């Protein structure tokens, strides 16, 4: 376990700028060149970049947990989903009649649920009797359901075709990003409290579970975010395309650059999002780097590299692990809220662990665990390749199967080319883990 992850020979100082430069060239090519490989549309290029930046923030959170502390979080998708709830509850306009239908009762039931858990803990602390705790929990469960079920029925019965959810507070959507972080942090605290301090695999398994359960809650609790009926029209922090297209000043400005108003409005909106995301990303990196260079960061890395020694030095390893796990999850939650804001849509069926948990892990490992800029580089690069593989994969398979005669086998291979992405990503993860475990940008 006592392995030092920092490289002995420091990498060339030009490595990071060169790699970021190559990345930038890829995006410029995507925006300008139209051929078999690239689309030649700035709208596509920026759309990929924006999602890449959100992945970068997610990866930053994962990197705090893995790179700083060696914690393996397999529930990234759940913490993203937790963050996604925030724009719904904070920034959507209030739903007429929903609060009157069952709001106070709902809050009361949730408080009662928390109260029962606290009471169970108290009973356990006082008596150490398992049956007493079980009794408290059982009675508490029925109390909770008796308060909760009618409230949910009333809220979901309120104009179910259009709403049927509790609605939001109508506050600015940017505020909801922070709230998303708080939501995810709360979930992380609960799970970390249980699973940290045990064997390292247990956190992985427990987070796998919480990830699936949070997504299940989102799919099935219609009062929260309308479940699989989806929520659309999350308020935007930036301008709407339609408004821009109707603004004569903007149309003139667009023509000055040689773009049509439709295209330019799309680009403008995406650039605005990009600026917002960049600000968040840079602030987070700044904070993360400052933390890493502080005594706290050195302590975290010392714990990661040799837990026993750190414990012998009087560090409370479990507490520090919990701290960094909560912080990292908060960052993931922020990214979840930002993603929903970008899409303008909450669609719980889209929260697939392969895409949102394991792909993020590939990004972190490829980029360089322990290095924040590496996480950013890995995310944007892997995201670009992931999206482009949709186009490149079938083309590559078509080229490879060219010599084959037309038949069911060739057809099958062509049809299943999208699945090649998973094989490719798995292979990339395994290869980097084995041959370049420090990633593209090694930890300094």
């Amino acid at each position, binding site marked *: 376990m006592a392995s030092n992850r920092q490289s002995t020979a420091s990498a060339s100082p030009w490595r990071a700028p060169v790699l970021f430069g190559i990345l930038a060239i890829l995006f410029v090519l995507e925006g300008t060149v139209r051929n078999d490989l690239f689309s030649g549309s700035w709208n596509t290029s920026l759309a990929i970049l924006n999602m890449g930046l959100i992945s970068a923030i997610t990866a930053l959170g994962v990197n705090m947990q893995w790179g700083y502390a060696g914690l393996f979080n397999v529930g990234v998708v759940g913490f993203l989903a937790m963050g996604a709830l925030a724009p719904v509850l904070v920034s959507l306009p209030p739903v007429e009649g929903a609060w009157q239908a069952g709001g106070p009762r709902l809050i009361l039931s949730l408080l009662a649920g928390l109260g029962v858990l606290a009471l169970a803990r108290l009973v356990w602390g006082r008596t150490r009797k398992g049956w007493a705790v079980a009794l408290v929990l059982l009675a508490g*469960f029925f109390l909770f359901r008796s308060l909760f079920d009618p409230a949910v029925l009333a809220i979901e019965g309120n104009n179910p075709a259009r709403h049927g959810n509790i609605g939001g507070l109508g506050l600015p959507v940017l505020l909801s990003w922070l709230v998303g972080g708080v939501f995810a942090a709360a979930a992380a605290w609960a799970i970390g409290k249980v699973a940290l301090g045990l064997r390292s695999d247990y956190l992985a*398994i427990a987070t796998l579970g919480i990830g699936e359960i949070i997504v299940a809650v989102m799919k099935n609790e219609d009062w929260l975010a309308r479940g699989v009926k989806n929520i659309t029209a999350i308020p935007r922090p930036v301008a709407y395309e339609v408004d821009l297209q109707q603004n004569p000043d903007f149309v003139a400005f667009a023509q000055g650059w040689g773009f049509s108003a439709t295209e330019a409005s799309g680009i403008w909106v995406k650039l605005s999002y990009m600026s917002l995301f960049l600000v968040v990303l840079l602030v987070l990196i700044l904070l993360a780097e400052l933390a890493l260079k502080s005594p706290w960061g050195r302590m975290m890395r010392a714990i990661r590299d040799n837990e026993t020694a750190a414990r012998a030095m009087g560090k409370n390893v479990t507490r520090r692990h919990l701290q960094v796990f909560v912080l990292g999850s908060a960052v993931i939650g922020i990214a979840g809220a930002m993603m929903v804001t970008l899409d303008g849509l909450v669609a719980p069926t889209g929260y697939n662990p392969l895409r949102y948990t394991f792909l993020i892990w590939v990004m972190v490992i490829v980029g360089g665990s322990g290095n924040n800029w590496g996480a950013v580089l890995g995310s944007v690069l892997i995201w670009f390749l992931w999206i482009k593989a949709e186009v490149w994969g079938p083309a590559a398979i078509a080229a490879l199967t060219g010599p084959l005669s037309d038949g069911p086998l060739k057809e099958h291979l062509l049809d299943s080319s999208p699945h090649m992405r998973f094989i490719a990503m798995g292979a990339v993860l395994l290869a980097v883990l084995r041959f370049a475990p420090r990633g593209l940008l090694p930890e300094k």
Partner: protein
Amino acid sequence: MDILNALVVFLNFVFIPAAAYGAQLALGALGVTLIYGILRFSNFAHGDTMAFGTALVILVTWGLQALGVGFGPLPTALIALPIGIALTSLMVLGTDRVVYRFYRRQKAAPIILVMASVGVMFVMNGLTRLVIGVDEIRFDDGERFIVTVRDFKAMTGLDEGLALRSTQALTLVVAFAVMIALFWFLNRTKSGKAMRAYSDNEDLALLSGIDPERVVRQVWIIAAALATIAGTLYGLDKSFKAFNYFQILLPIFAAAIVGGLGSPLGAIAGGFLVAFSEVAITYPWLKIAGYVAPWYEPGGLMQLLGTEYKFAVSFVILIVVLLFRPTGLFRGKSV
């Protein structure tokens, strides 16, 4: 009479499905627990190994069906099973050779092996999708029922019927046979004893001349066989869908941890515990209550949790075990 009716409903909707599901979970958890005992990491690729093995079995089944080979009243998949196991073992031994052996020699931290298993999971998942697609596939043929509802009603004259599907009976019989064989192997054969010795104390086992690579190879083959059997039985009983096998990973881990990671007996107990809790908590008890206590009229269905939250049950069991007894019921490997 009412009591008998209640009992029949209970058997039909709770006991039989839970027993079959429990047997499938137990076989899966046995694979996880054996891998943990020997290689000392939680294999996240196990669910997708199950899916991969089942996909191969389905392909061979289709081939056999095309040739006109059947197994009478039993599903053709049973004939295909040995071939599926052989191919899956080869695949799993290949992943060990290419991926895990390197980290084993390095004595890497367990979490690195867990992460490598995630990479293997990705690849296996993609391969499964590649060979068989993402759609739901039913591949049970042969006789569908051993006892049908109508026969049962005619036979007993009760109001409630009992159906015993042949896949459920088959699951229980095969699982039981596999478990007997496994325990015979672990307790009676030299290789099995070597395996347990290696699991208990690696250094001591090495000193007594046990070849670690041989033990590792054997445990992979056993895990692949268990995974393929569990996956095929699950697929026969419900249906085959690649993503379901990823999701079943959580109950399997819960079962293995509840029983105590590294303890085969614990894995079996854990599998049944998780399955019975899951079914009992998500089953609407209204009908049974109607027979047992006809005077009682509850407002709802008497369902503690909706079926969509069945994974929450295994999760809660997992949390309770982690809180109060992290080594599991049967005292697995220390924390």
